[in-house]
């Protein structure tokens, strides 16, 4: 009988122990979900904030990594907060510029050409990369692909970046037009990725047979993070085009324009600026003439002939 009692005690103790272990609840924070509620979404933008847009030359998350330091630097120099504004398409950014919703923007060469044509978009500065203020459009295919020329891509699938992109859309269209072809006739099918990194990724992962990408992006990725670029090969390099510039809307405050321009131009003159430039593989910023983009204009004209 005593043994039975002992057994009972043992089991009870065991149960208590197990329960203590299992029922060890975490601390819960008491909250009433129906009290002190706000219906408005707060999204305040400070009057003082300088909004600088970045067109989706590269994908938004890549852009954040690429531009954040630069923007912080600018903010520091301007002594004003700077907000990085992104949109999915070049068109949307151009719209922000047209409506003067942003104070400046990093945009594609073709977007500048169109903006300049349509609403007097002004050049501010342009980066010098590898001592040049030009860039190219690369035709890339998967590294182990049999395709070795643009012509061989006939009947294959193809990725463009943004419809307003120069290197990612206009250049291959121009090339096709020279061959009396359109994307519809030449490719089995094609689509827009809206950013160059995505196009590189699509080729590397063999989602498409080929793509046209910005040489600056491919080179940058190839030197900093060659995960995808190493899986691709360049089969065609276009003639050089004016490098994508930094622009400001027409009719901006000349003082602001001058101030901002000076900040960019002086970047390579101080330690921290050089450091940031080095990270984004840009030698420096320089003033650039509109004529640098004439080749783009020419292509556009040629394209819109019909």
């Amino acid at each position: 009988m005593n043994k039975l009692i002992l057994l009972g005690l043992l089991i009870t103790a065991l149960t208590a122990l197990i329960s203590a272990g299992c029922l060890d609840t975490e601390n819960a924070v008491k909250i009433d979900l129906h009290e002190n509620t706000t219906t408005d979404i707060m999204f305040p933008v400070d009057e003082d904030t300088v909004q600088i847009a970045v067109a989706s030359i590269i994908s938004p998350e890549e852009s954040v990594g690429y531009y954040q330091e630069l923007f912080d630097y600018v903010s520091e120099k301007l002594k004003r907060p700077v907000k990085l504004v992104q949109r999915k398409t070049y068109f949307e950014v151009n719209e922000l510029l047209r409506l003067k919703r942003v104070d400046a923007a990093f945009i594609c060469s073709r977007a500048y050409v169109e903006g300049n044509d349509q609403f007097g978009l002004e050049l501010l500065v342009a980066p010098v990369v590898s001592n040049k203020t030009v860039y190219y459009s690369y035709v890339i295919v998967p590294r182990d692909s049999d395709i070795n020329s643009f012509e061989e891509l006939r009947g294959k699938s193809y990725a463009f970046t943004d419809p307003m992109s120069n290197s990612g859309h206009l250049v291959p269209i121009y090339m096709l037009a020279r061959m009396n072809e359109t994307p519809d006739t030449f490719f089995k099918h094609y689509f827009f990725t809206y950013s160059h990194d995505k196009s590189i990724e699509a080729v590397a992962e063999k989602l498409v047979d080929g793509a046209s990408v910005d040489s600056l992006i491919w080179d940058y990725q190839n030197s900093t993070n060659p995960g995808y670029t190493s899986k691709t090969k360049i089969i065609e390099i276009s003639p050089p085009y004016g490098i994508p510039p930094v622009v400001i809307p027409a009719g901006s405050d000349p003082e602001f324009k001058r101030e901002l321009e000076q900040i960019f131009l002086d970047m390579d003159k101080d330690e921290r600026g050089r450091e940031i430039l080095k990270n984004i593989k840009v030698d420096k910023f320089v003033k650039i003439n509109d004529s640098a983009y004439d080749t783009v204009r020419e292509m556009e004209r040629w394209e819109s002939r019909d």
Partner: protein
Amino acid sequence: MGIQRLKGENTEHDAHLDFSSNQRLKPGLRGKFILTILTIIFITGMIATVLVYAVSLRVLTTELQDKGMVITENLATNSIEPILTEDMISLRRYLFDVKDVEEDVSYVYVIDGKGNLLAHTFSSGFPDALLDVNIPDNEKTSVQLLDTDEGYIRDIAVPVLDGKAGVVHLGISETRIRNEVFKTSKTLMYITILMMVIGGFLSYFLGSLVVRPVYALKKGAAEIGRGNLDYQIKVDTTDEIGALADAFNEMAKKLKSSMEKTRGYSAKLEEKVEERTKELLLLQKINNLLNQGASQDEILNAITHGLTTVFNYDSSTVNLMSSDRKHLICKSYSIEDKIIEKLESLTGLRALNYQIPLKKDSPLTMIVRTKMPFMTDDIVKLIIDHTDNELIHALAGTIARVSNTKYGVGVPLLSGDRVVGVIGIGTREKVSTKDVERLANFAAQAGMAVEKAQMEKQLKEYSKDLEKKVKEKSAQLIQSEKLASLGLLASGVAHEINNPLASIMLCAERLRDKDLDSGTAKIKLDEIITQVEIASNIVKNLIDFSRQSKPETTQININMLIEKTLEMVPFEFRVRGIHVEKDYMANLPEFNGDPNQLGQVFLNIFVNAIQAMPDGGNLTVSTFCEDRYIKVSISDTGNGIREEDLNRIFDPFFTTKKVEEGTGLGLSICLGIVERHGGHIEVESKVNVGSTFTISLPYR
């Protein structure tokens, strides 16, 4: 009797046992069994419930959390673009997509890198309090349990682009799984209760299966305890209880056999006690006889009679040791009268007081010598081998055959360590060693009684003798009283006579001094003077003897003292024709003592010598020195003293003379005197040859 009493005790004990066992079984084995089973089921059920509750809650919440985290992380990835491109419509759509698809998702909201709320799924407004909880550190996913009015909600916060773009929060409700777990636990509880009911019934029936044999066992144990050792417990099971029942049955069997054995033992013991009691009664009877002053013969008869009646032997004899210890004398026997009559008439011998010589190597001698019992399987052969009398040989065989007595035992009759006789028994059956031992023990005690009886007999004889002596002594005492009176009388007479004797002496001297011419008259006068002197001396001696004068020590010439003493009895010597020879040592040293007393010693011895020689003889008196003792030797040629009397002659009142001849005091007085003078008296005597008394007196 003894067995019956034992039985009585047993039943009492059984009643007690029965009672206690009933008491003990009252709580019920079955009850315990059921209780145990129910307890086990209950405890197991409780443990299972608690465990299932705890474990499943933990597992499910972990899973829920994991799921929530996957959803949130996905959402965070998907939210990057909408956040960065400020596409709030898409963002909102994403949030609602998630919330609508996953029923456990309670809410989703997104804040930007600066903490501004970008989008949420709350229909009735965003609760501000949420903004303060679960702010992720280190750009990592964090989880916080919230206890809200809608139940427990796990808030999962995933930073977007390491928090640069913002944070996606997802609230996943635990209400559903908690309800599920609770439901499951409830079901388990119901199952436990059901199991307890089923378990209760099952254990009741199982308990019966177990308890039935136990009850059978209990009944059997009670039966066995009650003494019913033939009871067999019927348990068919082959388990431990079956084994126990078998063990019980076996135990009962063994108990029965051991009880029977015990009964046998106690019967034997009883018999032995009875025998022993009989023996003791016999010994008591013998002792009673002894105390009542029965004669030795009566005691011996009681012994032999007891041996045949109490010990149940066929014949018995008691043979006592003769005084020279060379024979055993048959003093009592118990045997069929006819046989003994026949024996006596045929042999012409008397059984009683028949003397059996203790021959060398005969069994009887062995018994006497070793004090150990002796057994024989053939009593006839034994008698023939150790008896010379051929008549007895022939008869012994006949008697043995007639009485069918074949076995014999002889045991020593011991008094202390001394063999006083031998008890012999004859029997038809072989005597066991134990019986011999009993017999020997009995003999040892009986021997003491016999010895005591013997001593009593001797004591009686001695007292008779003493009585006779006392009679004699008192006569002698009267005589001595008479003598004493006579002595007194004599001293008075002597005094009276002394005066006329003095007158006669004076007259005779005067007459002699006168010049008488008649020579004859002068001679006669001298003769008168001499005779008067002798008479005066006699009278003086008489006075001296009767006076009991005090000892006066002076230097004595022993030779002269003897001579003077001898002068007192010349008449007797002459009358009896005794010739006195004297051999005195010249220059004998003087002795310091009382001449009167020592004279009395010599006189007494002389008188004794004279009385010992009624028909005359020689009396030799000699003195000499030896070893610083003056020795006076007085020898006579009389009748001498008997050897047995020699040691007693110095005892007071011992006398061999007739009452009128002496008091029996003389020699004892003499010894007293000599010893007071530091000396001693030695006697040598031979009947009809003579006696020599030597008195030794020490000198310096």
